[in-house]
């Protein structure tokens, strides 16, 4: 059953008037006839609504900084924030240098009441000293939690002093949880800090290879980045830095040498992509390595960007080889998945990315949305000039970036760049909505009540979201697929990743456990037997139940 405006209205009518007015603007029914469909996004969640959203700290430390393996991430605050961001996101990493992978370490200043009263700067400085002495990392990041900003700890000053004292890259991120309206504010804060303090801090002046790229917004969840890099390296690309999955200070500081930046997760990293364009003249290409067609298109766009015939030919060779490997493996899973429907509600880009992969398995996405994206992730970057800043977005600083006098290079001629922009998403992202078909539902910051209501009406065959709503849906007897952590599986990116995803989704549909939900005695009579024909009523022969 599709959802009409009338049904939508009925769903929203359960809300108090104010909540209804608010939520209405975050939901739309896709109508491709309309020139542009607007959706409200990146605005406050209403207090008292069961939301999936997290905070700026989670976006900064948890998402962007956390995966940098050769840096120690110190969390300045009470113990919880550091604790929950410890090893829970599945951003995998292997050490490039001995003893330089600190991802299994959670370092928290564990602020106590006296630190709240008298300030925690001294304790933070001691923690930095101890981290340097014990771990000798390539750098240190300091992430602030809520009370830090409130009590006025100057973590930037502590970082500056420590930087001078230890001669190490030590930087502070004022990503208090109350900033902005979701994780998104934290992405921006982290982007600013990496751009100001780390990217470009290296000595390299020239790219190490002919086709040197960075991959931005790829966090190596379940090993995604490794699968993507396997193919890219095979084609002939040099991956300078990945931001930030399996990433490192050692690589990131020289990210300025790349000739092209790939953007996988637009939401979390587009700020750096833009700033690299301005500062070093490096264009960025919106790619998507989730889904086979999207991965192929991304590879072809990359090859056309560099425009080298041998690279284009090699790209086709690799695509052909990879397809030959995975197609037979996908077939049995397609048979299981075909004709099914899905909800696809994820953070800031996967809500879009996974729709294509689902489609390739024969699964139609009937509802999609983002937890913390902005309007441009839905409507495309054309909408950027029309997005109004509000009190919440204004307090995240926009860096004023200018071209780097010695390192700015035009990577390709302006005319060629303009021509390429017509054929591929260079410095551009067209957003989720355009890819959604008529009658599908787009929901921003989908909450618990709406999840239940939409499930009742649309009855999806699979629900893909995160850990907080996974078991809610599973209790209803609906298979789920966590698309934040892949249910501890992966990689899902690239060619081989598609097979893993297909296998896991098919497993969700076909696990025998669904057959046992209803106990065999439900609906069955307690006593079974026959009643002998009664002489008084010879017509009655047999009655099954008593």
């Amino acid at each position, binding site marked *: 059953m599709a959802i009409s405006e009338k049904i939508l209205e009925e769903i929203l009518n359960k809300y108090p008037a104010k909540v209804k007015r608010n939520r209405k603007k975050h939901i739309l029914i896709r109508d491709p006839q309309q020139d542009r469909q607007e959706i409200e996004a990146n605005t406050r969640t209403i207090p008292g609504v069961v939301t999936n959203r997290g905070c700026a700290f989670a976006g900064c430390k948890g998402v962007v900084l956390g995966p940098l393996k050769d840096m120690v991430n110190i969390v300045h605050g009470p113990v*919880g924030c550091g*604790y929950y961001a410890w090893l829970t996101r599945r951003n995998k990493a292997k050490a490039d240098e001995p003893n330089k992978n600190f991802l299994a370490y959670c370092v928290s200043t564990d602020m106590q009441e006296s630190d709240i009263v008298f300030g925690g700067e001294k304790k933070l400085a001691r923690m930095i000293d101890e981290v340097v002495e014990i771990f000798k990392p390539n750098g240190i990041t300091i992430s602030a939690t809520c009370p830090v900003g409130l009590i006025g700890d100057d973590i930037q000053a502590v970082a500056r002093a420590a930087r001078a004292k230890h001669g190490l890259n030590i930087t502070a991120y004022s990503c208090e949880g109350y900033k902005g*309206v979701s994780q998104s504010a934290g992405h921006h804060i982290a982007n600013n800090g990496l751009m100001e303090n780390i990217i470009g801090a290296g000595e390299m002046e020239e790219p190490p290879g002919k086709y040197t790229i960075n991959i931005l917004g790829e966090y190596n969840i379940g090993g995604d980045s490794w699968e993507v890099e396997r193919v890219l390296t095979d084609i002939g690309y040099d991956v300078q830095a990945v931001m930030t999955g399996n990433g490192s200070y050692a690589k990131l500081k020289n990210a300025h040498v790349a000739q092209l930046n790939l953007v996988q997760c637009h939401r979390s990293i587009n700020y750096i992509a833009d700033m690299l364009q301005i500062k070093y003249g490096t264009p960025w290409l919106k790619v998507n390595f989730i889904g086979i067609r999207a991965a192929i298109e991304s590879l072809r766009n990359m090859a056309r960007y560099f425009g080298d015939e041998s690279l284009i030919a090699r790209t086709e060779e690799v695509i052909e080889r990879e397809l030959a490997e995975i197609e037979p493996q996908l077939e049995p899973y397609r048979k299981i998945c075909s004709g099914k429907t899905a909800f696809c509600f994820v953070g800031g880009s996967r809500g879009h990315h996974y729709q294509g992969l689902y489609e390739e398995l024969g699964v139609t996405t009937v509802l999609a949305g983002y937890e913390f994206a902005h309007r441009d992730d839905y409507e495309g970057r054309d909408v950027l000039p029309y997005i109004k800043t509000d009190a919440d977005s204004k307090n995240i600083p926009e860096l004023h970036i200018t071209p780097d006098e010695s390192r700015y290079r035009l990577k390709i001629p302006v005319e060629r760049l303009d021509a390429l922009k017509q054929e591929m998403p260079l410095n551009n992202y067209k957003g989720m909505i355009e890819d959604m078909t008529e009658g599908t539902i787009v929901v921003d910051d989908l909450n618990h009540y709406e999840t239940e209501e939409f499930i009742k009406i649309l009855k999806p065959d699979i629900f893909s979201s995160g850990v907080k709503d*996974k078991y809610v849906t599973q209790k209803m007897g609906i298979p789920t697929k966590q698309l934040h952590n892949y249910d501890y599986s992966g990689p899902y990116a690239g060619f081989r990743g598609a097979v893993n995803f297909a296998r896991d989704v098919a497993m969700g549909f076909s696990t025998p456990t669904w057959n046992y*939900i209803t106990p065999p005695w439900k609906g069955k009579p307690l006593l079974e037997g026959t009643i002998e024909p009664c002489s008084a009523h010879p017509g009655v022969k047999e009655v099954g139940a008593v």
Partner: protein
Amino acid sequence: MLDCTPKEVIKRSGGLINPAKTCQPIGAMYAALGIHNCLPHSHGSQGCCAYHRSHLTRHFREPVMATTSSFTEGASVFGGGANLKTAIKNVFDIYNPDVMAVHTTCLSETIGDDISTIIKSAEVPEGKVVIHANTPSYQGSHITGFSNMVKGMVEYLARADTDGKKEQVNIIPGFVDPGDMREIKRLVGKMGIKFIMFPDTSGVMDSPMTGKFDMFPAGGAQVEDIRDAGNSSLTMALGYYASSTPANLLERNCRVPAITLKTPIGIKATDDFLMTLRSKFTLEIPYELEEERGQLVDVMTDTHHHFYDKKVAIFGDPDILTGLTEFVLSLGMQPVHVLTGTPSGTLGGPQGIFEKEINEMLAAARLEGRVKAAGDLFELHQWIKNEPVDLLMGNTYGKYIARAEDIPFVRVGFPILDRSTHPYLPIVGYRGALRLVEMISNALLDRQDRDAADEDLELVM
């Protein structure tokens, strides 16, 4: 694995590396889930609520429903009163629980929001109740938060409104799994004593698969029962850190005598638990429980050679550790390292009842060991490097140390994020002790089998 942890211990004062505790609010959220028809509410930034729901969900593999005040920078400057009032209205309008249980966060505590005043001025529908607990993340641990929320239940709900006290016992189970709560209830039930357990997450955090989602599952302590707890003749607080403060408050408010006992993990603590019920209610312990005890002793004796003199390191929450340490001692093992992240004394004071109790147990067994409260897993790992052990017991975070040092590992406590069934199966009572014996011997003997040369592999052990 953990290759950057050196053997040499340096004195540290900058905070924690690899904590063995987390913050108060998650404990408060868990406790609140133990009230029937209750929606926990986190008064702070959205991230707190998201983190706590996620982490509880990972441990229980169950839905954890909770709301948040969604603080913004404005609310942090001007106070969160407006956000909380909006939240209270929306929670009852949209989700309609019987109880909304508000806990604070480091954010709302630092700015000093006065929760009870805000609640009083909020629109709370007739027949509904909003309770609260102050749970500043910069004091204590998740165990303190659990205790504080149970205190909130006592403060807001329990009433002494009968002339005399009723022949019924209140049980505050502490921060344990629903399977443990069920087992404790079974034991008290077998004794034939009427009881009120609160909080009680059984039936909430171990709910069955039925094909239907219930935002408020069938389990949990009923509000009227918590109210009636003020009329009981005794409160048994299981676990000093999670349960004694609310039990003492109930004694003060409603004159219900309180006894604090160890969480009944292992044979001795279970004996103490049953003996207390026996003497307080003058009821004999039924043969069925005596039989269970005898079976446990039988297995412990049959297999003492698996355990005797084995060195073990244990970490986790203090109330769990007290029982576990006592139990491994009763198996003839040597708990040489015992560490909790929770501060032991009041508000982070240095030495408290935790170290004292564990040290007394070790002394009685003529053993010496490292015992520490407010410690971290980095330090525990260093202890193990300096004095190796045969077995490590603790929550999932221990697997990194176990792998680094190649030590058999038993998962016990909170959180267990990489295995299932622990929320359902108890570690308390004689049955729970039997399960611990199974887990410990599996870990030790699987290891012995793995390492044995072909000619040494034993069929019978």
